């Protein structure tokens, strides 16, 4: 990404010293990252590095052990998914989090149903809105009355993405959003990310595809065994540099090393 991002004002999101342990496993250990408006920030790392857990603490799905979250510079109380939604933080979960027995529009509006003046759910209106938003992502989608269990992986993913985008998110968390998508659909998500970015939305993107991270993201954070290896501006490093961060935990010159970086390499650099 070549557009210059202003990183002088208040960050949209600032997570400081986030901690989460499951039993003896320190899934996330003292990680601090930030995100500015109109910025796409990648979060990378090996399987089990703690990426999803870090994101789930931001989306309120997991209660953190320690750490602070600031939204627009102000300390935010995020203890459950409702809190996160109230800060306009929307999430596409890695395992999509869809109710398989409900159709696309019921899933899209789950927890935020549109209602009639009498307070009943307005299924027709929700279906109309779903057709509009889904039409942008997967123009060929027709199965609006099928439980999402009967949809393909990519179609399910489109439902999850539509849900996150529909409600005017300020901050979007995408945990491997293109994992199940075809070429055409991936292209649509890439276009969508660009469009949302232009609207000033901040996006946290988890992706294993380094090439995609290079093209989509402005900055990238790399995690290893729950610790932050470092933060880099993607245009200032090579794909090999990023691979080195993920595999060896080496923070390249120009990057800001985190607590998880190998010290000797920093000293040498």
């Amino acid at each position, binding site marked *: 990404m070549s557009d210059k991002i202003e990183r002088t004002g208040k960050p949209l999101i600032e997570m400081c010293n986030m901690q989460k342990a499951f039993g003896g496993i320190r899934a996330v250990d003292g990680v601090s990252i930030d995100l500015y408006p109109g910025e796409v920030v990648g979060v990378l790392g090996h399987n089990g590095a703690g990426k999803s857990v870090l994101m789930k603490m931001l989306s309120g*799905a997991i209660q953190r052990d320690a750490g602070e979250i600031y939204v627009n510079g102000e300390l935010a109380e995020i203890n459950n*998914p409702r809190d996160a939604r109230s800060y306009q933080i929307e999430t596409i979960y890695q395992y999509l*989090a*869809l109710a398989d027995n409900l159709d696309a529009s019921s899933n899209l509006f*789950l927890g935020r149903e549109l209602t009639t003046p009498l*307070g009943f759910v307005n299924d027709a209106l929700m279906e*109309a809105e779903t057709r509009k938003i889904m*039409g942008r992502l997967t123009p060929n989608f027709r199965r609006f009355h099928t439980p999402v269990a009967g949809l393909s992986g990519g179609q399910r993913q489109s439902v999850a993405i539509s849900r996150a985008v529909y409600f005017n998110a300020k901050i979007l968390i995408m945990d491997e959003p293109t994992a199940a998508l075809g070429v055409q659909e991936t292209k649509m998500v890439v276009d969508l990310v660009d469009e949302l970015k232009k609207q000033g939305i901040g996006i946290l993107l988890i992706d294993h595809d380094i090439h995609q991270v290079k093209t989509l993201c402005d900055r990238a954070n790399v995690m290893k065994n729950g610790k932050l290896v470092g933060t880099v501006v993607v245009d200032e490093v090579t794909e090999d540099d990023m691979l080195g961060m993920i595999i060896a935990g080496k923070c390249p010159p120009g990057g800001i090393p985190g607590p998880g970086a190998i010290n000797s390499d920093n000293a040498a650099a």
Partner: protein
Amino acid sequence: MTDETNNTGPTIVKPKGLFAALEIDTRLMGMIGAFIVIALVFQIWTGINAQGLTGDIAWNPFSWLIDGRFLTPRNIFNLTIQTVSVAIMATGMVFVIVTRHIDLSVGSLLATCSAMMAVVQTVVAPNWLGLGLENPMIAPLAIVVGLITGAAIGAFHGYLIGYLTIPAFIVTLGGLFVWRNVAWHLTGGQTIGPLDANFQLFGGINGTLGVTWSWIFGLLAVAVAVYGLFSARRQRLSHEFSVKPVWAEATIAAVISVVILGFVAVLNSYEVPTRRLARLFEDRGEIMPEGFTTGYGLPISVLLLIVVVVGMTVLATRTRLGRYIYATGGNPEAAQLAGIRTRLLTVKIFLIVGLLCAISAVVASARQTFHSNDIGTLDELRVIAAAVIGGTALAGGVGTIYGAVLGALIMQSLQSGMAMVGVDAPYQNIVVGVVLVLAVWIDIVYRKRTGS
């Protein structure tokens, strides 16, 4: 489920088959079909039996159908009032099973509610409040106490399950023992009766709408149903979705109207015995005109069931609470991530079940005109069976209110029918058990076939 092939544009009407055009729920059709088969089998069977009694069996199936005793106004009347109590609780059991729980305590809960109401009618009202016999306040007071009891116990179960995360199976198994015997304690183990006369109106035969009001109710129901179909169609059109052809819509409306009015006509044609009528006139200090006859019409208990079914269906399909119940059943984690308070939801579900148990307790105790220790015994199993026969999946996320009611009706029909043709109770239970397993197996096969 059939796949919707319409797109975002305006209606494209494709030529379709009859059933496709009507867009009828095939599972509903299956259950109605099963019910009709059961009814016809018993009609013919009782017809043959009746002819056998008179000595000569005509080898003519039509005469068997005509001589049968299963599809008489009297038996249909009895069948409906026998179904009410279990059917009311079964609508609540749908919510419980949809959210992957179970409730083994409904029969015992019914007993405790019944005991509370009996005590209010026979001890609290006359002795503590000084309300005289047949005081019009007694029945409402008893019912309110019953409802509060049911709701409180249900909510307590829900709290133990939702917040303390004790499995529902365990909580309600405990409840099965506890509430049956709390009921025993409340009444000192005594049978209490007769219950208040106004209270007995909810029992069935002792409280019916009469011919005129039954027709008025039937016409109102038809009006509401037709209006519902019409407004749903208008709403779909306003969003430019495809709609059924007008003739299909009209056919459905006609079928619904015929069923409703036919049901009313049957209940109206069950005539009150002359002796009973004469007594009613006597009580009012009048003399019965010569040759006067009238039908019972719709029992108040059945009216109550209809109100409950409509209310629960609206709750299930048209409210956020219902949407959350099904979402939580389909994927509890997804529901939680969508911001649904799943623990509180559990409390609400069991509270609803408690309320329904109380309503069933009104009907059940009013029907037998007294409270007894064994009231509602084994109802938990009948209620679960009704919900499951009606297509509620124990895996969660799937189940309908109308299915549970049809399930209750099918079970009751089987049992009454077998009793009529002289099958002994143990054999009846064997058949019911086999039917339960068979119904679930058919449902599994159906689901696999349709991929839903």
